[in-house]
């Protein structure tokens, strides 16, 4: 028995979300007396692979022979062959773009019950029950998994990251022996460069229709700069073309869970809140004291953004410089 964690790399590097997965897996391993095996697909240096050990992996399986881009079928072939080789009983992936693409295929192929977007470790192991968000964050469901093999995708930022610890870890290069000829062809890649990705950001500064015009966004950009934050917006803003689509958060955009979410000029429509309600702390700036956003916010400023944002920027700068 083992807990297999799919540790995805981005250009040869691991992101925080991967360490979160390993920390989560390690807690389950301790409770069930098993150990954590990490699976890395693609080209990652051994030195980098070793860092996975600091977060709980006892063994790392590195599969280098794989398509350069995510081919759902071939990656499923690889992952299922490693699940079988390691006799894994729990498979853990991130609930991100690739986790959502792969976990259901693995689940269907191996008839392994899937809990997607889990928000905590199992509340019980026999029966095996895990809590997940449903109805776009409006409620939770406790899902019982009936099969011996379980697949879990973990909602981002729902588990803390353990302090890194030195421990022995072995690296095994494995050839899964699968056909790596993709039936799909990658014809173009477009990368967003020099910008903090929303899904990586600890702090997110977001604007809505109350910002009045795209010309006022510099106020949010400056604040985001000082806070080291990512930028987001409500749906009408990206629909209007004031901001790029990758910044749209909510039910029909990105679902994020930063530590701090600052919403400025956003009314707090239910579809918007669905995308941000898992944030640890929400600060809302709105001139309407009755705006629904204040019902989900921890802190609020009732006022006009033209007046509030410059003051906020100064105050944050003072704190950061002190």
């Amino acid at each position, binding site marked *: 028995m083992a807990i297999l964690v799919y540790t995805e790399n*981005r250009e040869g590097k691991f992101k925080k979300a991967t360490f979160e997965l390993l920390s989560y897996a390690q807690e389950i391993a301790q409770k069930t007396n098993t150990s954590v095996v990490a699976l890395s697909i693609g080209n990652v240096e051994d030195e980098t692979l070793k860092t996975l050990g600091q977060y709980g992996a006892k063994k790392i399986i590195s599969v280098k022979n794989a398509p350069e881009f995510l081919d759902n079928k071939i990656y499923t072939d690889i992952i299922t062959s490693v699940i079988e080789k390691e006799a894994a009983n729990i498979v853990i992936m991130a609930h991100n773009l690739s986790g959502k*693409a792969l976990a*259901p295929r693995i689940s269907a192929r191996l008839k392994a019950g899937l809990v997607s977007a889990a928000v905590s470790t199992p509340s019980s192991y026999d029966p095996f029950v895990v809590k997940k968000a449903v109805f776009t*964050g409006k409620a939770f469901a406790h899902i019982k998994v009936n099969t011996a093999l379980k697949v879990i995708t973990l909602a981002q930022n729902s588990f803390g990251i353990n302090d890194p610890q030195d421990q022995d870890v072995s690296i095994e290069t494995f050839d899964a022996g699968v056909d790596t000829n993709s039936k799909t062809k990658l014809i173009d890649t477009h990368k967003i460069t020099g910008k903090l990705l929303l899904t990586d950001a600890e702090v997110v500064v977001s604007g809505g229709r109350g910002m009045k015009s795209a010309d006022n966004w510099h106020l949010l950009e400056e604040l985001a700069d000082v806070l080291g934050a990512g930028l987001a917006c409500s749906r009408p803003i990206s629909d209007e073309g004031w901001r790029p689509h990758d910044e749209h958060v909510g039910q*029909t955009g990105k679902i994020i869970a930063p530590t701090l979410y600052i919403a400025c000029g956003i009314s707090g429509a239910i579809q918007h809140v669905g995308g941000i309600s898992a944030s640890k702390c929400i600060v809302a700036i709105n001139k309407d004291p009755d705006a629904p956003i*204040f019902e989900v916010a921890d802190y609020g400023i009732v006022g006009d953004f033209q007046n509030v944002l410059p003051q906020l920027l100064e105050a944050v700068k003072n704190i950061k410089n002190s």
Partner: protein
Amino acid sequence: MKILVCISDVPDTTTKVKFKDDNTAFETAGVQWVINPWDELSLTRAVEMKEKTPGLIDNITVVTVGPKESEATIRKALAIGADNAIRVDALPKDAFYVASQIAEAVKNENFDIILTGIDSADYNGSAVGGMLAEMLDLTSVSSVSSLNAENSKVTVTREIEGGTETIEAATPFLAIVQKGIAIEPKIPAMRGIMMARTKPLKVVEPADSETLTHIEKFEMPQAKGACKKFDAEGVDELVNLLHNEAKMI
């Protein structure tokens, strides 16, 4: 080309969610049902392609696994522009069960493109599409934000962490769609609504299938503490709180 659009019948996005039977069942009283937003956009894109390129797409079928009540949603899909519909007469039990039912119902129909949404507004499983692709042994691409087809070749754009990729795939092929696939859902015109009444809707009995998971109970999130509100004069105080009390900045 033949396109299949999987549609899920979900509570309207503004629904106040409540549970009954000791929190083991969703309270459906008073709920407005709609086509899952992603599925509505998939269908919109399919209809757009059919209308814009004559001869490219011969048929658009929609399929849903659901009880008789979900036929209102199916009729709306037909009004938007699907040619015919299949309803598997069963309550969705879990994603594996739903995907198995769809796979069984369409396995001999030779669809060239199958569209599913990235997640359903009720159970948020993000699962049915990938499972269906596996069961039908199809190539799948997830997080698809644009779709174009010509002859037997499909080109899609998909979101990746920090960018996008354009991918070409041969049919048959399954796309799991998200934001961008179409901008506004197509609103059925009066003529569409009239025609929908007579379009074929085939009801099929469910196949024998297992479930892999079971919802034990639901839970509402803990009520948030009251929001600490300040006016514009209180910005400094708030920032101090965020720094010293909440340790957020």
